[in-house]
């Protein structure tokens, strides 16, 4: 039954990936921003969680309450200061890629400056325990992180589906001009959506902090992972991101089992590469292609 074990571990990881990617895909869907700094901001939240844990022994799952609003505010601020200037550019999407690339460099440099390049991790008690259901074992940290991720994804779905702001966000995703015509202030909505995306990155950072050791340069690999799974699921589709996350997390778990952990990233890189080349709209017919 070893493959069941691998499948379970893959799915648990997939839940966290899905939440990490949902913010990224939301940003693309609403304002066509490919945020290369998404994983760098996840790291910011991870380091905030680390500091809170080291100094106040605050449980990382509780520090979500701090990292999420913090990152929301940072997102709104960054959006309003940086992006309206680019909107006039005829190569808007390309410019946003370069801009967020620059942001990622800044964040990485600042984190390295403050925390140095060594590995850090947050080790609450549950980081070293695990649960057994029959023969299947589940590390507590992954189980908790996965459950919180799903809870947040459901919350995101509720916000998008049933609140006025959520409706405005969905409308802007579908047709920006039409949203403006019916009276949506798209700049405000974009800023809020950017904030929500960043808040999700904040949550992801807090959860990752006790799942994997991290260092500032790590975010490039992560953002490539995240891009792979949202390109697979279809850019701008949150449902697609969840499916993509599950598929790739399970696939990479099997690759790890067969070829060893060093080769597991190849699942993501190859997927990203091949999907972009062969089926840029994603496997499930995205709303928009990159």
């Amino acid at each position, binding site marked *: 039954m070893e493959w069941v074990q691998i499948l379970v571990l893959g799915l648990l990881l997939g839940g966290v990936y899905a939440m990490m990617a949902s913010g990224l895909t939301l940003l693309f869907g609403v304002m066509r921003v490919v945020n290369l700094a998404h994983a760098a901001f996840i790291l910011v939240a991870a380091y905030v969680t680390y500091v809170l844990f080291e100094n106040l022994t605050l449980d990382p799952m509780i520090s979500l309450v701090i990292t999420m609003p913090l990152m929301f505010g940072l997102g709104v601020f960054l959006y309003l200061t940086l992006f309206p200037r680019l909107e006039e550019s005829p190569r808007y999407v390309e410019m946003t890629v370069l801009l967020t690339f620059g942001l990622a460099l800044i964040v990485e440099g600042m984190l390295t400056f403050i925390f140095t390049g060594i590995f850090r991790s947050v080790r609450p008690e549950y980081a070293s325990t695990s649960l057994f259901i029959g023969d299947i074992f589940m590390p507590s940290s992954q189980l908790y992180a996965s459950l919180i991720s799903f809870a947040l994804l459901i919350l995101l779905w509720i916000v998008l589906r049933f609140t006025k702001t959520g409706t405005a966000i*969905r409308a802007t995703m579908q047709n920006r001009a*039409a*949203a403006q*015509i019916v009276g949506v202030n798209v700049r405000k909505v974009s800023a809020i959506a950017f904030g929500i995306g960043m808040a999700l990155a904040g949550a992801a950072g807090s959860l990752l902090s006790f799942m994997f050791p991290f260092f500032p340069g790590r975010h490039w690999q992560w953002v490539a992972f995240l891009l792979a799974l949202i390109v697979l699921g279809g850019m701008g589709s949150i449902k697609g991101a969840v499916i993509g996350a599950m598929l790739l997390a399970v696939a990479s778990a099997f690759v790890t089992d067969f070829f060893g952990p060093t080769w597991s990233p190849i699942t993501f890189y190859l997927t990203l590469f091949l999907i972009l080349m062969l089926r840029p709209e994603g496997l499930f017919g995205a709303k928009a292609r990159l």
Partner: protein
Amino acid sequence: MALLEVEDVVAGYGAGPDILTGLTLSIEEGTSYCIVGPNGAGKSTLLRTIAGFLKPRRGEVRFNAKRMNGSRPDQMLAAGVCFVPQDASLFPTMTVKENLVMGGYLIEDRSLLQERLEAVYEAFPILKERRGQHAGTLSGGEQQMVTLGRALMIEPKMVMIDEPSLGLAPMIADQIFERIREFASLGITVVLVEQNAAKGLEAVDWGFVLDLGSLEFEGPADGILADPRIRDLYLGKAMARRRDAD
């Protein structure tokens, strides 16, 4: 007093040239208008400027005697100016009903929203029939009906419609113009832009003739249609230019 005044407005896109070159016109409440003129005269640009999608480089747009320069589209809508652009700009994977409800985005009162929805269904029975269907799956004429119905949701003081008959079969276009007349009968000030000058002018009270970004002539719609000079100079030219472009 005029409902909307456009005074000496200069506007254009990005770093591009001026499309409107000092345009002045005024619109009275309760009258319906059609703006005609050759391709590139600045008809759509005028509507986009009034709707707040484009900032005037010079001049002033006043609505209800209030200066509106630099207002965002949502602020213009809240003031009572509704814009229906050329491409049926709907939310393709939302249902017809959801699209109409989005039209009432600025309405906070839920019961009022429901009331308006019923009113729109009454005015456009076809929309009630299709309410559960995704807007993206409708025909061109039906999509245009949804955009008109959606405009009605907010009960605007003034509605500006850009090329409502574009790409529609003549019979369907006639139905659309009929709906537009109904807008006027509800007391809503209608401003049309129409490539098919004869059809557009037939549906309204007053006509504006635009060329090269400024107002060349205005007068009662039937008078413009009847005036052979205007036909030759501006409306005929539109036809001639279109042939050239092809």
